[in-house]
């Protein structure tokens, strides 16, 4: 088990390899479809400082507003990452992001981006909404809440020991590709 704290240096991220179990701590940002589209089309600066050497989390959380006006995460598992495939590599390089957390993995374009700009893909456990919400210690701020709605907003959160597994590293390796290939061979044999 590797403990990593945001901000993460390029050197440290390049040490990670597929299969590593990581506990992630520090300030990260949730972003999904509308946020990614915005980051490519308008390259807004408000999110720059939070993304630098940090991590993007593909997540549409259930969030509660407390009586004092602060926010808490109630349930916050990962959402399917592949929808961000057209944008991800460019977002990583543009904003100097060191990692993306999601589920289901991503494809060649992102894998290339991870290699080129020094980042990895962390897989969270899909559906583990309560457990991950418990590792969210604080909601620091939120952007585009009104415009995008709660699941699509940029939530800037502080996490502690967020459990993830590296499934795509910065050296061109992807666990998803490997499993796809192996299971494809087995499927062919079973179907024969």
């Amino acid at each position, binding site marked *: 088990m590797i403990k990593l704290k945001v901000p993460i240096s390029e050197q440290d991220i390049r040490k990670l390899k597929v*299969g590593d*179990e990581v506990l992630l701590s520090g300030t990260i940002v949730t972003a999904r479809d509308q946020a990614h589209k915005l980051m490519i089309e308008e390259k807004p600066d408000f999110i720059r400082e939070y993304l630098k050497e940090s991590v993007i989390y593909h*997540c*549409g*959380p*259930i969030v*509660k507003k407390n009586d004092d006006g602060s926010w808490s995460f*109630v*349930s*916050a*598992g990962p*959402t*399917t990452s*592949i929808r961000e495939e057209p944008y991800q590599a460019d977002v990583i390089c543009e904003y100097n992001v060191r990692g993306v957390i999601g*589920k*289901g*993995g991503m494809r060649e374009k992102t894998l290339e981006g991870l290699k080129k700009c020094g980042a990895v893909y962390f*897989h969270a*456990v*899909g*559906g*583990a*909404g*309560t*457990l*991950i*919400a*418990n590792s969210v210690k604080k909601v620091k701020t939120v952007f585009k809440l009104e415009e995008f*709605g709660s*699941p699509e907003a940029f939530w800037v959160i502080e996490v502690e020991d967020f*459990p993830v*597994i590296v*499934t795509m590293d910065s050296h061109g390796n992807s*666990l*998803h590709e*490997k*499993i*796809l290939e*192996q*299971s*494809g061979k*087995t*499927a062919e044999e*079973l*179907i024969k």
Partner: protein
Amino acid sequence: MDLKQSFVELLRRAATDLSPDVENALKQAHDREEDGSPAKAVFRTILENVRLAREQSTPMCQDTGSLIFYIDLPVGEKEEYYINIIKEAAEEATKKQYLRPNAVNPITGKNSGNNVGINAPYFHFHQWDKGEVRVRLMLKGGGSENVGTQYKLPYGPVHAGRDLAGVRKVIIDAVYKAQGLGCAPGTLGIGIGGDRVTSYALSKEQFFRKLGDRNPDKEIAEFELSLKDDLNKLNIGPMGFGGKTTVLDVFVGYQHRHPATFYVAISYMCWAFRRKTMTIKNGEVYYD
């Protein structure tokens, strides 16, 4: 008895309290994986998450799914009455954060904010001879729904003909294509025969069976077991990380088809296999 609150409670239980048959199957799957493997880590996280959700009464998964109700009514009871109360209960359960707002208007893109909309929740009503009302609820997550699919046999790419051997081939194909995307390990509901609509309907209804339950038709029971074996050989594993459990179970149902058609519908249920039953009898409410 406050019927609306009873439905809020049904929704809360479905979202936060995983049924024992599913939890046990996940525990067994955990024990089967190698120590130190990513697969074992996934099962450990899932089980810890299930425990926390129950303890804290928070949704085990933030996608609390589409709300699908199957209601059996005694003769003379009005459907409208239940539809209205359940809509109010869904709204309240959303406010209480037992549910995420998951009803989006496909034309305007607007989320209704309370899980109520056109055909949301979705209701299947049946009349039956008993004097009690049975309400079965399924929360069907979007990620797992997206990997569900329907085949029309014959299906060339895997040489699947119009027989049980062909059905087997397309099911293997579907699970291979799904990889870990439906939050594997999944449970499959298979509907063989019927038309486009009824094959899917039959496949979904299988999810009310308990894990380990076998089709009363012996040939189909054996088919279910051998499919489960074959699919676990794919080694896709939890979340698609590789591992011994790709599916927790396979439930197959069949119905007569038109001579010209042969559909196979495959519904995929994620590990967060959420369904609960509530019975209303003599003014009392019971949950399974």
